[in-house]
């Protein structure tokens, strides 16, 4: 009998504890109603800082940028639409080529393109059912394959795989380490969504080094890809980087020395001269006018064309990456 009493007392105590627990415990959050995202502007409501960063990014301008409009003939070249207004990456799957969308194209490569999952939830850094976008922690956001759907069209991710930056170890860096760094270097502040690249002079300067040495009767100029985990330049065939020189002290026109670029398909006879990660390219200046010294400069161009191909004006039409004055 005492055993039965003890059991009953224990059960009663347990029930009381359970009741107290139930009263004390914070109720589970109500799941948020499923929200269909029709525009990335909806994201700004909660993610104002990220949205503001993205709005200044080239991803946001991938549809509206006048340069793109001109080169794609106002997107009459429909092949450009796939990557300039893509459907969600996770809809086509990691590493697969993205598909073009018919709506809200002006939003370019937007929040939805990178974060929307096929189930309507958003790929993010935490699981949370209680907010409108119902994020799901998604490690794949860190994966270079995420970028590959567009950026590997011209082999950028493959170039990274072949570089020292893809080898696990102290040098390892993937796409987001350079292109989406921590805000103010602080991981607790999350990653920047400005996603800077070839438009950023600081990033360009960190990618390559320019050196020159005196050699028999002339100069040897070296360009080394020291910092980019892919070719320099990479990705788009419209990108080019040109090496120029002129006699030291001259303010006259620059003289072309070498072009780093992967040509368009129809440019029969041209070959790919992009500089792979870690590679060095040597050029020689043997012109007698260089004897008293030379000024050498490496420029970066967003389009391969010069206003006047006979007299290219890099100062006006490009970004200067490095300049060098060499004296005998």
């Amino acid at each position: 009998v005492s055993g039965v009493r003890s059991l009953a007392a224990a059960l009663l105590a347990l029930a009381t504890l359970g009741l107290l627990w139930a009263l004390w415990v914070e109720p589970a959050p109500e799941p948020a109603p499923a929200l269909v995202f029709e525009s990335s502007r909806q994201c700004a409501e909660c993610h104002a800082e990220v949205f503001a960063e993205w709005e200044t990014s080239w991803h946001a301008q991938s549809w509206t940028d006048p340069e793109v409009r001109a080169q794609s003939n106002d997107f009459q070249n429909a092949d450009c639409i796939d990557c300039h207004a893509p459907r969600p990456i996770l809809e086509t799957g990691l590493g697969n080529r993205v598909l073009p969308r018919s709506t809200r194209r002006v939003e370019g490569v937007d929040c939805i393109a990178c974060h929307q999952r096929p189930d309507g939830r958003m790929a993010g850094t935490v699981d949370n059912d209680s907010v409108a976008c119902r994020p799901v922690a998604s490690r794949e956001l860190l994966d270079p394959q995420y970028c590959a759907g567009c950026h590997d069209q011209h082999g950028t991710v493959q170039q990274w795989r072949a570089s020292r930056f893809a080898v696990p170890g102290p040098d390892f860096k993937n796409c987001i380490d350079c292109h989406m760094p921590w805000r103010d270097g602080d991981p607790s502040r999350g990653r920047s969504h400005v996603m800077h690249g070839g438009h950023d002079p600081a990033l360009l300067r960190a990618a390559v080094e320019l050196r020159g040495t005196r050699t028999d009767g002339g100069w040897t100029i070296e360009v080394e890809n020291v910092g980019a985990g892919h070719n320099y330049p990479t990705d788009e065939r419209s990108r080019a980087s040109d090496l120029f020189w002129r006699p030291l002290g001259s303010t006259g026109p620059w003289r072309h020395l070498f072009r780093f670029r992967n040509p368009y398909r129809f440019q029969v006879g041209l070959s790919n001269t992009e500089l792979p990660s870690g590679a060095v390219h040597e050029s020689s200046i043997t012109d007698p006018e260089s004897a008293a010294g030379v000024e050498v400069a490496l420029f970066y161009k967003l389009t391969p064309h010069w206003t006047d191909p006979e007299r290219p004006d890099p100062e006006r039409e490009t970004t200067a990456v490095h300049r060098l004055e060499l004296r005998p």
Partner: protein
Amino acid sequence: VKRLWPALLVVSACDGGSGTPPPVTLLAARTTYGDVVARNLARLDAELAGETVQPEAIAPDLEPHVLGLLETVAHARDALRGIAAEELAGLGGAAVPVLARELTDRGRDLETRRAAAEALADVGTPESLEVLLASLEGARTAVERDNDLYRVCAGAVGRSDAAWLAPRLSLCLKYEIDHLTVVHLSDSLARLGLVSGLAALFVVVRASPDADPREGRLEPQLEPQALERPQAPARSQAEIVLERLRVELGCADWNELARLWNDGVLERLPPPPSGPRYEREVWRTVARLGEWQLRGVDDARFTLLQQRETAAAILGQALSDADVYVRLHSAQCLARMGPRGRVAESALIAALDDPQVGATAAEALGRLGGPAAARALAERLAPERGLELRTACARALGALAPEDLESVLAPWLGDDAPLDLSTAAAEALLRSGRARPGSTVEDAAVRRAAAGLTSGRVEPSTCEAALNAWLATRPEPAELLAQWRALGERPVPERLAARAAWIETWRASAQSR
């Protein structure tokens, strides 16, 4: 316990009515797709297996004989040359391995290599033509083009009437920069039923003689026999080909010729290329649509959109392939093919319900569809359909401009409709001229398109183009239209804002009238 407790509560309260709401499904249920491309390639490979000649070892006594004949063709006087060429051709496929080797041997003198190219064309078997074609396709770099052999190959291969050459010759034309070779390729394609080289021929005709430094430098005896005036430079030869086509197809001028092709007036064109070997080449090209790199896809797409009915029917079948990229790019090919691809209309209508390809199928129907397509597109404007598809259908309907377009699109012009859809509907009505002048529908369309100029949320250039098209049909005073045109000279975004304001003024004035 704290972690388990909510679960216990859920279990205890298991009434099926709580928990996370069901996920939003972005994609509709998939239709069943299959390995259409692989299956057809396997079928055609099996069908053609009996016709394929396996390369044989060269008979020991044949090789010196072939080389001797080739030497005669390359270096002897005309009479002997003709006899030797005839005898070489008579050897048929047995001579191909030796001729192929001689053609591709860079150590050989050019005359012998040219003679080998001509002899391969005379033999005319699939194997000999394959050698010529591969030689032409491979000649892309300056080193490979340090002589005129690629041009001789183009002329030689063009003498064949083998339909299966058409897709690969089409691709050669895409990259060709030598004007005379452009003429050879365009001429060959026309003889195979594809008048797809017209644009390239027009480029050659319009080019000044200075634009083609190689013009007129070809030795007369090397000119392909297909061209009637062997010594004429590329531009004259292009004119000859265009003129011959004009006469053959009964056109008043070259522009009519271009219209026949671009508008797909198929009954007036020569018979299209066909046959199992041609179909296999088309299917092989369709298979390339599934490649990851767009370079290969773009080549395949270019090749396919230069084709005609047979290829269009194949592209229609490919819309059921399991590979989404094959389906997507097949629909794109048909869109770019335009009216020549109308045999695929019903397949495209079925593809409207493909969640990933539907919008592209709608675009294609806008280019080639008839009344059935218009009905199918209108049905898919319904709210239960995805916004991507509805928007694409509205645009496509604008291109088809069915008579009932106003009533079909009017429900989607309001502020309660999704912005992309209402803008697409407005553009469609204005471009097609199907909105009755002065009607509330017309006003709603104009208002919506004008809002799109400055909203920053839809594509302003298409709104502006639609307003331009609409104004061109309005009986407005000339000075009013001149104002609108003058605003077009301003830079963006000032131009768009000014034009939006102009439209608002116009609407106010129209309403008061």
